[in-house]
């Protein structure tokens, strides 16, 4: 190394660090990517929210592209995204299944009656065991699953119309095309 060059090393190191810091400003350190992308929806067998005596399993959901939305009545931002989900449901472009997470059955039913029910069906996960298998770490979370039961996308936090239009619906269309 030349005599002058080596005194540039500290500056170079700082430049690298500063680049990362700059990139860091636009990243969310709390967002955790799901290791389940590309994997099967975990096995479960749980009662439906609406019919406590009817069990639903992961196999019942095979054969169609669908969104799996994790929600609960105690979750404030679930309420914030609910309207968006209702509108998405009206579009009839994709089925939405709800995973009602650690909730009270009566409260959840009232919520759906009052705010509208965009869900094809709601899986009632009282103990939160299936949510753990799904790697859920907060509500709301939304998974996109294909006809073979493989998870293709996960969004943590409330969904918004932009996200649905720009990201979710195009992916849905593509997955449906593949069959």
């Amino acid at each position, binding site marked *: 190394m030349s005599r002058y060059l080596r005194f540039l090393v500290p500056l170079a190191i700082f430049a690298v660090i500063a680049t990362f810091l700059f990139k860091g400003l636009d990243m969310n350190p709390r967002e955790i990517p799901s290791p389940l992308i590309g994997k099967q929806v975990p096995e479960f067998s749980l009662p439906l929210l609406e019919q406590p005596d009817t069990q639903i399993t992961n196999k019942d959901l095979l054969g169609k592209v669908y969104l799996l939305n994790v929600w609960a009545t105690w979750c404030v931002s679930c309420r914030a995204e609910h309207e968006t989900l209702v509108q998405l449901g009206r579009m009839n472009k994709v089925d939405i299944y709800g995973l009602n997470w650690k909730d009270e059955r009566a409260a959840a039913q009232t919520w759906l009656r009052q705010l509208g029910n965009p869900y094809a069906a709601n899986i009632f996960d009282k103990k939160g065991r299936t949510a753990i298998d799904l790697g859920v770490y907060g509500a709301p979370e939304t998974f996109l699953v294909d006809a073979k039961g493989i998870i293709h996308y996960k969004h943590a*936090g409330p969904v918004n119309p932009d996200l649905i239009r720009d990201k979710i619906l195009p992916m849905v269309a593509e997955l449906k095309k593949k069959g």
Partner: protein
Amino acid sequence: MMFVRSFLLSLFFLVFATPLHAATLAEYTFEDPQKAADFREVIDEMRCLVCQNESLAGSNAELAVDLRNEIFDMMTAGQGKDDVIRFMVARYGDFVLYDPPMKPSTYPLWFGPLVLLIIGALVLIRALRKKSVTQETELSNDEQQRLDTLLKQPSDSKDAKK
């Protein structure tokens, strides 16, 4: 864009959370003290996912309680530390581990300090070699004089100049 992000972030803090639940580690009792220690170690070294930098052991978030219960059930059913780690990583990724796993993508992390030490040591040795063969370039008389007048005192460092 910055604004949007800061808004989302604050939203995240405000509403994206799980409720708090009174929790305690006293409920978890094992007959085998080794198992108890393993349990404690594994929940200490796992990161709670919803809270700011808290371990599974230290968090009162409901999800943390659920996960502790799950891990406790696994370990009482005879599974070991490694099984628990595999279980958690399959669901939440490496993010959940405070002790990053050793694999190609984490080599920079694990061996970085060593590389740093080796580079530093090489530079040091080179500098030392050079130092021990270069000529004496102590303060010149002129410099010494300037130093003395600046400090208005006789220099203590004279003793180093034999």
